[in-house]
């Protein structure tokens, strides 16, 4: 076989593999959207779920998913940012840093059911939080932290060493070089990391079944007091998310239209994640421009 033939074969194989990946993605997305979108309506998005009758919606579940995501990011982002900066900029190259990195890796490969049960025992039972958004957010932080830390560390590492030298040689302190130069340059990468981890948080179900719970009590969306039990912002109320709702409908759903609602909810989940991706990407570009050029 001459080199031209082998080159053609290799190219063909690579194209075929890519086509397979795209094919699977298109098939999944297409199937979910095709079967789900017909069930999405304004009524579906804005009404509460029904346990026994047909015609329920996903309003509370959708909101719970968003709220949980926001809360998770509020908890995990500062921690991940700090540890990402430490690992990228300060950590000496020794066994201890290696240990931290390994720990982060292990954390990221924990099965979500295990994290969920752990959260259940520690937060829900031991700390008396009950099934609550807060317990769910802390459990999700466990997933989020490794991904986010890793992506922040990598985004910082991607900033050229020349930039650090430029800052230091100008008489900036190390901290000022990091916060004033390296971090702004890494913002698009960090945002991509947040989006990726957010997608995972949004779709997570197993860990939430035991922490945030499977019930969506009726809440008052006009009540902005987060300590009021009826408020939609109360972090200590149980909250069934969209992904948990889909799981529940498919395992023990008794509404006559369980299949339809589950398809619709799946489509909503996908669409929201896609929208979130687009929005965050635009936000990333906008922020980068804002931070790197005056006026």
């Amino acid at each position, binding site marked *: 076989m001459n080199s031209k033939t082998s080159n053609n074969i290799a190219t063909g194989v690579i194209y075929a593999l890519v086509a397979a990946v795209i094919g699977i993605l298109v098939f999944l997305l297409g199937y979910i959207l095709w079967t789900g979108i017909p069930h999405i309506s304004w009524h579906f998005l804005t009404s509460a779920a029904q346990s026994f009758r047909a015609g329920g919606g996903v309003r509370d579940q959708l909101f719970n998913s968003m709220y949980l995501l926001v809360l998770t990011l509020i908890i995990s982002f500062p921690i991940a940012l700090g540890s990402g900066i430490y690992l990228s900029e300060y950590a000496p*190259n020794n066994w201890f840093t290696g240990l931290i990195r390994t720990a982060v890796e292990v954390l990221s490969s924990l099965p979500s059911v295990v994290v969920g049960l752990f959260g259940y025992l520690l937060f829900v039972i031991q700390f008396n939080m009950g099934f609550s958004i807060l317990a769910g957010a802390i459990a999700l932080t466990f997933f989020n932290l490794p991904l986010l830390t890793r992506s922040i560390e990598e985004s910082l590492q991607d900033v*050229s060493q*020349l*930039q*650090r*030298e*430029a*800052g*230091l*040689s*100008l*008489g*900036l*302190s190390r901290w*000022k070089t990091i916060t*004033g*130069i390296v971090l*702004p*340059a890494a913002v698009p990468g960090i945002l991509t990391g947040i989006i990726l981890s957010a997608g995972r948080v949004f779709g997570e179900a197993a860990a939430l079944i035991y922490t945030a719970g499977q019930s969506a009590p009726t809440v008052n969306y006009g009540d902005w007091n987060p300590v009021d039990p009826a408020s939609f912002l109360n972090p200590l109320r149980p909250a069934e998310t969209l992904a948990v709702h889909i799981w529940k409908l498919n395992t023990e759903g008794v509404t006559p239209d369980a299949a339809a609602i589950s398809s619709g909810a799946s489509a909503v989940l996908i669409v929201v994640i896609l929208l979130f991706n687009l929005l965050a990407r635009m936000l990333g570009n906008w922020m980068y421009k804002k*931070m*790197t*050029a*005056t*006026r």
Partner: protein
Amino acid sequence: MTKIITSNDVHLYYGKKEALHGINLDFEEHQITALIGPSGCGKSTYLRCLNRMNDLIKGVTITGSIKLENDDIYASQMDVVNLRKRVGMVFQQPNPFPFSIYENVAYGLRLAGEKDKHVLDERVETSLKQAAIWDEVKDHLYENALAFSGGQQQRICVARVLAVQPEVILLDEPTSALDPISSAKIEDTLMNIRHQYTVIIVTHNMQQASRISDKTAFLLNGDLVEFSKTEKMFIHPDDEKTSDYLNGKFG
């Protein structure tokens, strides 16, 4: 002439490997000194000792003494941040910050606490003029510096250093990544500022050294071979190795 930097028996080790074998070099105020020599001779390494940029590299040990005026720059009480404010640096690869031109040049001043818009505007303009780039960028001050050509970026980097008004400016092969026209502009800049600043430049380009420098130091394999007035060195070098290098017999 006042000596601004004096270095005495400077040895530098990367791990166990000795890269500088005891360099004695003094730099006079408001002059341009060129460091020349073949690749790997230690000229950049030596230059980076002068503002402690070698601190960033793991496993580097430095012995001997380097003084900026009367301050030992490797003394434990030396504030490295303050040292680098006094000894600025321009690198081989243009490395402007991913900010606007104005922000690049004003950044060091802002961090030093300067808030007065007029002072900043004025200093940005002066620095860009000194760096011979004002006319090209005066209408684009608020555009990202990375959008400009390599030669322009390098002059922006020079302006950025000038804006904080250091006493000494180190340049590590500032024109080796640039085209001849941009290189000539950088040389013009150096000629412009030679009476206000002490300039130490590492260069591969012997013509450049002969054009702009007052004194030249020739390094070879981590040793200082010869250090004298540029004219003298290029016409009557004392050492045969210097003569061979200048005549292109090696390096």
